[in-house]
């Protein structure tokens, strides 16, 4: 056993509240990576010791626990948050005390902090390839429906802009406040269907997904001609909805549990051994798993746990993750990711329908995308 002090860090996800289904998935990836690292004796002889706290899907709780971790527990590194409102609440605290935040969720972009390592996809990595795929499959009439979040509004802005320049069109959009009771969903969905869209683009988050998909199914609202398409419906959310309503929806994500590479087979095996044979990892668990591994790699180089040293060592790092290689973009602290489109199945997994040929460079401020659109018009 090593006599060096353990490396402690914060893990801040919601184990309760409306983001619990999603953020419990995040937590599983962390637990698995930490176990793996510690089984090999830790990093340079130091074991990884996560301090796991429940942020209860509440941004004020997020803020309070972040301050507690940075000031009282003296950690430099925190893995955490999913909703953008929570990240925005935590970000100034992380910057003020010069911590490092590993953010593992797909989000709307337009942010950069030298103190944040962004592990989730930006819109150019997911929404643009997804729309390309859909338009090529002759799906042109979109209705945009989602939780009333920053993510939904910015995603829909980009969707509208993209469709305006292509042959598709947006018929309308609606935002449902977080925590709306399930009855409220039905009227919103019925209203959307009056427009006869051939895609319902969903930006519902966390446990709100269940209310949306179950409502669609129960009322037989969504016929076979309609596709429900999302960036936030992953394995964890899918297994929470009614079994009969699970099949046939599309999701774009950087990873699905059904990836066939060897590394993923090993990952799957360990994941199931740890969390149960019926469990399927999704992009949230894969991302936190990979981010903990990236941190370990960085600390191998630096022998230090100061924020500056860790951030410097992380810059430009590459990693073979389950599903394929990822790397950190030194200019934006975002991650090069592939886009994978999967169709959901009744057993809670996704059949992979399409994959980007290579990783896609993160473009959080859509600088490249704007140039492409401008070039198209000239």
């Amino acid at each position, binding site marked *: 056993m090593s006599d060096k002090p353990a490396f402690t860090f914060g893990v801040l996800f919601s184990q309760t509240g409306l983001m619990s289904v999603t953020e419990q998935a995040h937590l599983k990836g962390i637990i698995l990576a930490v176990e793996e690292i510690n089984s090999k004796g830790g990093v340079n002889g130091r074991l990884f010791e996560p301090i796991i706290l429940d942020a209860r899907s509440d941004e004020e709780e997020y803020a309070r626990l972040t301050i507690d971790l940075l000031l009282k527990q003296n950690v430099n590194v925190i893995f955490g948050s999913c909703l953008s409102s929570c990240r925005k609440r935590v970000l100034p605290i992380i910057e003020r005390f010069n911590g490092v935040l590993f953010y593992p969720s797909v989000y709307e972009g337009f942010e950069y902090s030298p103190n944040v390592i962004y592990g989730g996809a930006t819109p150019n990595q997911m929404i643009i390839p997804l729309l390309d795929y859909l338009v090529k499959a002759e799906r042109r009439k979109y209705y945009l429906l989602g939780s009333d979040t920053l993510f939904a509004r910015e995603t829909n802005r980009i969707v509208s802009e993209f469709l305006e320049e292509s042959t598709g069109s947006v018929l309308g959009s609606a935002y449902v406040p977080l925590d709306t009771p399930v009855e409220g969903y039905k009227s919103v969905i019925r209203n959307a269907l009056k427009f006869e869209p051939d895609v319902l683009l969903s930006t519902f988050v966390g446990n709100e997904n269940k209310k949306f998909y179950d409502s669609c199914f129960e009322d037989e609202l969504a016929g076979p001609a309609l596709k429900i398409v999302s960036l936030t419906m992953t394995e964890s959310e899918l297994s929470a909805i009614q079994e009969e309503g699970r099949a046939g929806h599309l999701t774009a994500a950087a990873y699905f549990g059904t990836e066939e590479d060897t590394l993923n087979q090993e990952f799957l095996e360990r994941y199931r051994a740890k969390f149960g044979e019926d469990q399927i990892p999704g992009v949230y668990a894969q991302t936190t798993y990979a981010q903990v591994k990236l941190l370990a790699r960085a600390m191998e180089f630096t022998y230090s746990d100061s924020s500056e040293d860790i951030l410097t060592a992380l810059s430009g790092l590459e990693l073979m993750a389950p599903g394929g290689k990822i790397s950190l973009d030194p200019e934006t602290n975002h991650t090069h990711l592939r886009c994978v489109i999967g169709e959901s199945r009744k057993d809670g997994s996704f059949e992979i329908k399409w994959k980007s040929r290579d990783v896609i460079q993160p473009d959080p401020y859509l*600088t490249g995308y704007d140039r492409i659109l401008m070039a198209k018009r000239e």
Partner: protein
Amino acid sequence: MANGKSELFDRSILRALRESQALVIHPDDEDGVALTRHLNRVGCSARRMWPAPDTLPEGVKVVLFLLSPEVGEQNYDWMSAETDVARIAIISYETPEILSRLAKLSTHSVLTKPIRLFGILAAVTNAVQMSKHVGRLNRRIRLLDETLKGRRKIENAVQALMKERGVNEEEAYRLLRDKAMKNRISVVALAEAYLLAHGI
């Protein structure tokens, strides 16, 4: 909201940014480098200079300039001549002296030191929109000014014509307008020529 279209945002704001050359006038230190890098990150094409140049380099549409008593007096006189440039001051003091210089240089936005990356994008887009708005207002004022001056000349010419020909106001104006049309010049130009010829 029922209709997606109504909440579409004004895309020209970001597009304008992509087409803007930005100049950072700031010493080569942590703030100067971080600011320039972040401007490029958000999609401006930005470079840094120090000390301040005597004239504004060609093509620059956004200037972010350090205004600080600590770094010595910089020459920002050229700024008063550049009407279409978005001006963002970088300040580390809020002293009356700095506040009055901000007003004199008609800055559109302010960034504070130490530089924090959050807020730079908003400061730049805001300054670009403000300078465009002010530019549009100025052009409109110039146009209205000329129109007003012209109207006065036409009025004087009409008065003179009424006396000379013994016609009423309407008739005098019609005479001026017909002649201007025949000669293919503006009514103002004809009125000017008429007044000049009659030593008025």
